[in-house]
């Protein structure tokens, strides 16, 4: 799976991501109208929804990298899984931070056991477990295989976690209007929708820019390692 973006193309990707981010900021903060109920606090949604989806995207890439690695045993796929996991942890952690900041003005508390926040917290724990597992196994190929298996199991478990957390959530507290977990795209102001869309693409492009950078870095460290070994003999 060729994701190594040559030097200049990565520059374009970075520049495009930057532009979209700025446009997204403009739309999200200024152009889009405040929400009827939550006022301006609702503008955090333009960050929250895209970063959740990016977190899911990175989990999917870890899964793809892990499967490819186990199947073909190529270092490249392992680097992809590792890079996706590293960036995935960052986005998942940010998602939780946004979620709790959004919760303060809306419900008056920093943390509610809202289905989406709980789910993101569990995702973060799985990611942390993934990175801890990788760092605690010395031998390279063994660490890669172990991480690959955890990547696959983690991904397969997400739908089950998703279901159980949502059922558990609806059991305790039926979703009310004010709750941010109602589907944001029904009866929503068109300007808000476009702001959301722009921010979403900005996040995805930024994610792939970071991923290609981290992936290239991974490849270079690998190259340095093999070169240093060969020179050693």
């Amino acid at each position, binding site marked *: 799976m060729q994701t190594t973006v040559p030097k200049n193309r990565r520059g374009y990707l970075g520049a495009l991501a930057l532009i979209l981010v700025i446009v997204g900021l403009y739309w999200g903060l200024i152009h889009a109208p405040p929400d009827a109920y939550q006022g301006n606090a609702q503008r955090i949604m333009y960050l929250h929804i895209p970063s959740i989806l990016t977190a899911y995207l990175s989990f999917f890439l870890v899964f793809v990298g892990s499967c490819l690695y186990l199947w073909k045993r190529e270092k490249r796929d392992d680097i992809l899984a590792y890079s996706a996991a590293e960036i995935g942890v960052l986005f998942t952690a940010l998602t939780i931070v946004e979620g709790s900041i959004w919760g303060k003005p809306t419900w008056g508390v920093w943390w509610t056991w809202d289905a989406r926040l709980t789910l993101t917290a569990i995702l973060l724990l799985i990611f942390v477990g993934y990175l801890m597992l990788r760092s605690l196994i010395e*031998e*390279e190929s063994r660490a890669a295989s172990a991480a690959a298996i955890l990547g696959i199991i983690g991904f397969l478990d997400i739908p089950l976690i998703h279901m159980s957390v949502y059922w558990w959530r609806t059991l305790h507290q039926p979703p009310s209007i004010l709750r941010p977990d109602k589907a944001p795209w029904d009866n929503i102001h068109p300007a808000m929708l476009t702001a959301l869309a722009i921010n979403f693409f900005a996040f995805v492009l930024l994610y792939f820019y970071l991923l290609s950078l981290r992936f290239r870095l991974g490849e270079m460290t690998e190259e340095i390692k093999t070169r*240093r*070994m060969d020179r*050693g*003999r």
Partner: protein
Amino acid sequence: MQLTVRDLSKAYGLRWALRDLNLDLVPGECVALLGPNGAGKTTLLKLLAGLIYPTRGDVRLNGAPFSRTSTELRSTIGFLTPGEHLYENLTARENLDFFTALYNKNHSSAAIVRALEEVELTDWSREYLSALSSGMKFRLSIAKWQLLEVGLLLLDEPYGVLDGSGINLMEAFLKSQCEKGNVVVIASHHISRVLQLCTRALILHQGKLTFDEPRRQPWDSFERAFADFLPHGGP
């Protein structure tokens, strides 16, 4: 049992344990694998046994390469290391029963008793393995591999634990294996003993195969090749 190794390399972290090794073993050969500590002898044995996978190159048994699914191929490989591959809390007899069943060899109980007799462990058969000395444990693994009828036998430093009669027992066992057309590879530091036994000698140095010749009398090329490992002189 025919074994071919093509430009085999194995790296641990930043260090090459084995570099571009090529080897062909034909049935009936008894190979001595010599070299200083850390030359990669155990790594090579583990690669031949399929316990670890090579970084580059491949190992083929009877033409079939090792892979995850080649479980049938594994029933022809034996790995003999002093005090290993036996369950400490099972009795000697239970160990043999377990492994013969695992390898799907339906030996009669009499055959197992006879195997124990041959290695002089009859009155220890009901003892836990932990009660046996390391020499006796090694005799038990000889009985084990005798029952499992493997085509390739790999031994890692067998001479360390055996007493006089144990060594004769083992060498008789290995000779019978070679006569049956199996391949034996012995990694050892007891050069004098292992040279008498083997039909071919390999010398490994820093992961590279520096010497590979069949045995002949007198063997001056071997003396020269092995000279730079000996402190000064030596056997």
